[in-house]
């Protein structure tokens, strides 16, 4: 007797998970619709051969007897209160790509099918401490999009699709269990045409086990080459050649609000949803964002844009929402907003996480970046500046105020003579009264001069700088132009 040993399929090279979305059309149609009663009977219909037919419906409608492929008129006759929504293939595609982005966080190999997604889970358990934890987290993430989902797990993509059950599996079946289930799978689930199905019936074949029991040479004589190719894919003998999913190079998403939003606070909920989707995208791309743009579109009138710049990379939706909220306060919006969209194409690769002995420094940098972003969002970019230094002789050129993070290198030699902490942006000419310098009150020279020459080849500027003080002890930085012998105050020694 042949001894059966139960091998865990974790030892196999490939583990494929197929996630099926049986109500994708309905979930996509309901994605942007609010205020629907929980127990409503809802169905999605589309035109098929000039007849409106039901594509799919929820469980309440099914309880009334409504089913897919039923004509719309029949469905309405059975269930008069049926809420019928038009099918939108573009929305379905959008939803499927959102789901693929979520899946991409769990596996580097994601393939999109018509109404489902394949994931190659081989080796992905390392990161999530086991396949069960991986599957639980994946399910939690998918449920956030409020979609109906079932899964199948096998050693090849096609087998996983055929073994798709009625619910989300949280455990990894062993090899024998998969093999047993696959062998008992009915043949009508196998992709192929009606003629092929009829041939199966004529031969008395009911399940895949019956088909695989036949020698390949016999199958090649009776069936087309396509079936043999399908069987090779089923057994994992032929590698999967489907196009892999990769996140798009730019992010763009929108939410339609047919009834319109009239206050800034009411915009925040939709903005939060879009930012959460955006952060899923960033996670999938393993990138951080540097800039993103909001577009608020009214029914009538011009679209209002709101760019958000980030001083440091960030991919945390709550902080992005805080920044958006702060900047939104300064924005004047039209009365009613019908569509909110979010766009970004400026990313940087996520830095590799490494152990740092001085983690406090990272925390400080993060705090500083968050603070700068908050100040920028509320006060505007003009309100923020940083002192910067240039290799110039004249003080007003040597020191300037630049936008944050654009300060130049400061490794320039500086004068050893006393220099003031405050600089007057424009030197103020001062008077002489009875050979006494006078600016607000009489000034007395304390020390000097230090001679500074500007770009002598452009403009002949030669200044002698002095330190002066007034009766109250305040100290000033004065200079006298050598050409016209006029005195100016240029700074304060604070």
């Amino acid at each position, binding site marked *: 007797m042949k001894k059966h040993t139960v091998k865990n399929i974790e030892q196999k090279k490939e583990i494929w998970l197929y996630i099926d979305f049986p109500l994708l059309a309905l979930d996509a149609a309901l994605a942007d619709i609010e205020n629907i009663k929980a127990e409503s009977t809802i169905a999605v219909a589309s035109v098929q051969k000039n007849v409106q037919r039901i594509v799919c419906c929820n469980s309440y409608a099914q309880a009334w007897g409504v089913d897919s492929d039923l004509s719309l008129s029949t469905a309405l006759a059975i269930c008069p209160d049926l809420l019928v929504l038009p099918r939108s293939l573009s929305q379905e595609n959008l939803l499927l790509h959102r789901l693929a982005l979520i899946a991409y966080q769990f596996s580097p190999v994601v393939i999109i099918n018509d109404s489902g997604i394949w994931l190659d889970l081989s080796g992905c358990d390392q990161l999530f401490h086991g396949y069960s934890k991986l599957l639980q987290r994946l399910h939690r993430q998918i449920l956030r999009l409020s979609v109906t989902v079932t899964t199948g797990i096998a050693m090849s993509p096609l087998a996983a699709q055929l073994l798709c059950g009625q619910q989300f599996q949280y455990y990894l079946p062993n090899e024998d269990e998969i093999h047993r289930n696959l062998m008992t799978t009915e043949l009508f689930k196998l992709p192929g045409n009606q003629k092929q199905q009829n041939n199966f019936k004529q031969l008395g074949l009911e399940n895949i086990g019956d088909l695989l029991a036949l020698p390949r040479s016999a199958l090649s004589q009776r069936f087309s080459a396509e079936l043999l190719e399908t069987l090779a894919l089923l057994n994992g003998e032929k590698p999967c050649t489907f196009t892999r999913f990769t996140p798009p190079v730019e992010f763009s998403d929108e939410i339609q609000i047919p009834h319109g939003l009239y206050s800034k606070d009411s915009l925040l909920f939709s903005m939060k949803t879009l930012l959460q989707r955006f952060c899923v995208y960033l996670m999938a791309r393993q990138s951080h964002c540097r800039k993103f743009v909001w577009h608020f579109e009214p029914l009538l009138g011009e679209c209002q844009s709101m760019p958000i710049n980030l001083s440091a990379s960030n991919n945390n939706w709550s902080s992005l929402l805080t920044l958006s909220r702060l900047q939104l306060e300064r924005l004047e919006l039209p009365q009613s907003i019908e569509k909110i969209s979010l766009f970004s194409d400026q990313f940087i690769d996520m830095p590799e996480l490494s152990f740092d002995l001085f983690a406090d420094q990272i925390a*400080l940098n993060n705090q500083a970046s968050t603070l700068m972003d908050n100040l920028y969002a509320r006060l505007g970019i003009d309100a923020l500046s940083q002192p910067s230094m240039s290799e110039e002789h004249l003080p007003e050129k040597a*020191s300037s105020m630049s936008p944050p993070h654009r300060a130049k290198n400061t490794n320039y030699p500086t004068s050893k003579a006393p220099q003031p902490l405050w600089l007057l942006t424009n030197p103020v000419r001062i008077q002489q009264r009875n050979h006494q310098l006078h600016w607000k009150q009489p000034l007395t020279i304390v020390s000097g001069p230090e001679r500074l020459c500007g770009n002598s080849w452009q403009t002949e500027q030669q200044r002698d700088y002095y330190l002066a003080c007034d009766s109250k002890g305040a*100290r000033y930085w004065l200079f006298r132009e050598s050409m016209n012998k006029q005195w100016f105050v240029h700074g304060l020694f*604070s």
Partner: protein
Amino acid sequence: MPNNQPLNKLLLRHDTWRGRNPSLRKHVVATGNNSLDKLLLGGWPVSALTELVSQQDGIGELSILLPTLKHYTGEGKLCVWLDPPYQPYAPALVNAEIPLDKLLVVRSKDSREWLWAAEQSIRGNALLFAWTNRAQPRYAALRKLQLAATENLSPVFLFTSLAALNAHSPALLRIELESLKPNILSVTMHKLRGKVPGAKIQISLGDIITERTFLDRLPVNIHYPQEKESDYPLPLKHKVQQLNT
């Protein structure tokens, strides 16, 4: 038997100060000047609001904070200068070894924005230097900043005018800065928990008189016109003094 529970709860609060509490001196950062440290019971109070009342700009009100600024920016902390009266001069800051990328100058449009930016900066764990150029903030606003400061791990400095001396303030420390002689700053302590107000010291801001003093060639008088020459013991050269007399 008296019920001490409310009192105990009150004593457990972070912002409740107990007289003769020796632990108070632990929450300070050295000013960089021994005399000033002694006056302030160890240094600038951390996690608290400090008011610096200055008679006028340019007397050295910022210079006494340079060691503290160098200390915190050296640690990588951001320092926010909120509504400074003038533009900071970068070469002077570089000379003082202050990294320019750790300084952020913020300009507010009104007192509401000023208060918001100040509170955000404190809560963002930045070192805040705030100037009250518009008007003296109200007690409630200062109380808000003081409460926010308790969560910050650095001091919070508020530069105010002389008018602030007559107003009540929740600040833990209030000092008045005055300069009667150039380069010599007089510091009067008006308020500090644990110390009787009124103490006064004079601190030197360092010798800033350069060697290259050719004042005899100047076409202007180097002496103050009033009869206060004795107040200005300037290190003038003998020849220069003769020329001017």
